[in-house]
């Protein structure tokens, strides 16, 4: 896949926000704050950083394919949207499954699923659930129970290192989930096994369900914590696409690389700022809906 330019990625990020804003208006609420904070990071990953092949997933939304079981292991899974699992190709494990709408819209912006498929988002009986599992387009594992995906991705990186594969394993995390002890269990083990084929992007938007992360359970000093656990930490502006791309090139021989993307949950949609830090789920109030619509039309 050819790498996109910064201008192309910026346009895609705007379109991602616009798509989620549309869902927010039409469905009376969506995870809009997460779209605002992570649009540049996810767009940059898919359009420039990741070395992945053409999607093998369906361009159309699909009826829910059933849960995994002995009789249902060959269902169309979310990893297909990241191309073939060749040894030289990268992987992307998304941990906060409530970012699903952002992932779906990023796939749509990057030609991995059709834009019409997004119409089936959170529609009963379809595979684009609000918080899905590993059948969900773009999800390589069942995420959502926070703190687990980092370990699944690390185990994958460990296995690929043992097999001598050159492809890297990327994990996308939110900042609130760094409060889970398992994340730090994983970082200590990733350091122990010298997983330098493992890269973590953290969307540090500073918000969680009950409010600002610093008030719910502070994570600072995050860079020092990561370094103390044996990782290489890079602290960047998560809305600066050049910085997001350059961070992925940071040397991290023998160590896991953790890119901390400092972001805002109202970036690109300033009318959300007054709600900050309560931006886990955005449901427009009756007297706000016209402002939302007007902003959408002018995006």
């Amino acid at each position, binding site marked *: 896949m050819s790498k996109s330019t910064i201008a192309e990625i910026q346009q895609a990020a705007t379109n991602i926000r616009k798509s989620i804003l549309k869902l927010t208006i039409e469905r009376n609420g969506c995870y809009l704050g997460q779209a605002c904070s992570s649009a540049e990071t996810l767009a940059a990953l898919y359009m420039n950083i990741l070395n992945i092949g053409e999607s093998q997933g369906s361009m159309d939304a699909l009826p829910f394919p059933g849960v995994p079981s002995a009789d249902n292991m060959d269902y169309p899974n979310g990893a297909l949207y990241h191309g073939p699992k060749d040894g030289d190709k990268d992987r992307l494990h998304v941990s906060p499954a409530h970012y699903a709408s952002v992932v779906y819209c990023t796939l749509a912006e990057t030609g991995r699923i059709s834009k019409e498929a997004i119409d089936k988002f959170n529609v009963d009986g379809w595979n684009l659930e609000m918080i899905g599992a590993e059948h969900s387009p773009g999800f390589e594992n*069942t995420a959502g129970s926070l703190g687990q995906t980092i370990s699944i991705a690390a185990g994958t990186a460990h296995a690929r290192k043992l097999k001598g594969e050159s492809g890297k394993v990327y994990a996308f995390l939110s900042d609130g989930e760094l409060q889970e002890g398992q994340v730090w269990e994983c970082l200590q083990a990733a350091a122990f096994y010298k997983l330098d084929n493992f890269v973590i992007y953290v969307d540090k938007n500073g918000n969680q369900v009950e409010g600002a992360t610093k008030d719910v359970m502070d994570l600072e000093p995050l860079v020092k914590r990561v370094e103390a656990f044996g990782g290489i930490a890079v602290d960047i502006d998560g809305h600066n696409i050049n910085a997001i791309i350059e961070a992925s090139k940071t040397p991290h021989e023998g160590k896991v690389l953790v890119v901390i993307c400092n972001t805002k949950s109202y970036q690109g949609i300033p009318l959300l700022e007054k709600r900050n830090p309560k931006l886990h789920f955005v449901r427009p109030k009756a007297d706000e809906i016209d402002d939302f619509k007007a902003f959408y039309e002018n995006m």
Partner: protein
Amino acid sequence: MKIEVNTHSKNIIQWAKDHPEAVILSADLGTSCEVGEFHTEMPEKYFSLGIAEQNMVSWAAGLAREGYRPFLHTFGVFFYRRALDQMEMSVCYPNLPVTFIGFLPGIMTPGGVSHQSVNDVAVLRSIPNLAIIDIGDATEIEGCLKVVEEYNGPVYIRMLRKEVPRLFPANEPMKLNKARVLSEGNDIAIFSSSICTEEAMRATEVLKKKGLSIQHVHVSTLKPFTDPQIVESLKKVKYGAISMENHTVIGGLGESIANVISENGLGTKLKKIGLQDTYPHGASKMYLMKKYGLSATSLIEAVEEMVGRNYNISEEDLEQVRFVDYTAV
């Protein structure tokens, strides 16, 4: 009856030699879970994850997705209590071939309540895709890895360690969802698992001499639980059935039997031997078996109550029972 020593240790070393995809994961209890020798012999296939079970379980899911077959070793409690969400979301929902080898089932340790897996079956039986195996003897230790391979999904094994009797012929390996009929009879049915089977065999021998006709069935697969042998055995008996398990009577073998009785409309009377909705405490196996009613004597008392007779059986009668000396093949 021959006592075998460290069977799992020898067995899994041989298994890994024949199966390059097999790897061991340990949460700092490998030496207590019979993979210390493995570590010495094949360090390249042994991964220490430290005292961090939640990460170990999810990490194993990543290895399994890439074609490895992880065998996780720690005490059962640290799987089903400590890392239940990881077992469910990282491994069982995706139906990945990860094997949880849980040591110290029931009252097998003087370590006390923090180390005794007394309600693991109850908790884990509700998890879709997961198979549960309750090891009863050395032959089953030797056979369980083949069962795991054929199942090709997540499996939890209640494993026995160190000195374990060989109750079943070495050339008759265990099969998934297939109970062993150890005695045919039509007065009373006894369903036993884990260390209770040896006790039940002892009691059965003595009761048979007193003229009682006993259907004794050893159950090693607790999930799936669809073996027709269970319902066939229940249909045969006149007085009723007794279950005997190294586990609380809530949610384990006994309640699985109760389900079969009710779903088939059999109306069989059922007495459940096991921990009676209590945590045990730390002491020797023999002491705990007596204290919590898991011994041959307790079974005989339950049989007598069900049949309405007193057989005047002494401890000495039970001690004199001798079993066939099955040796390894």
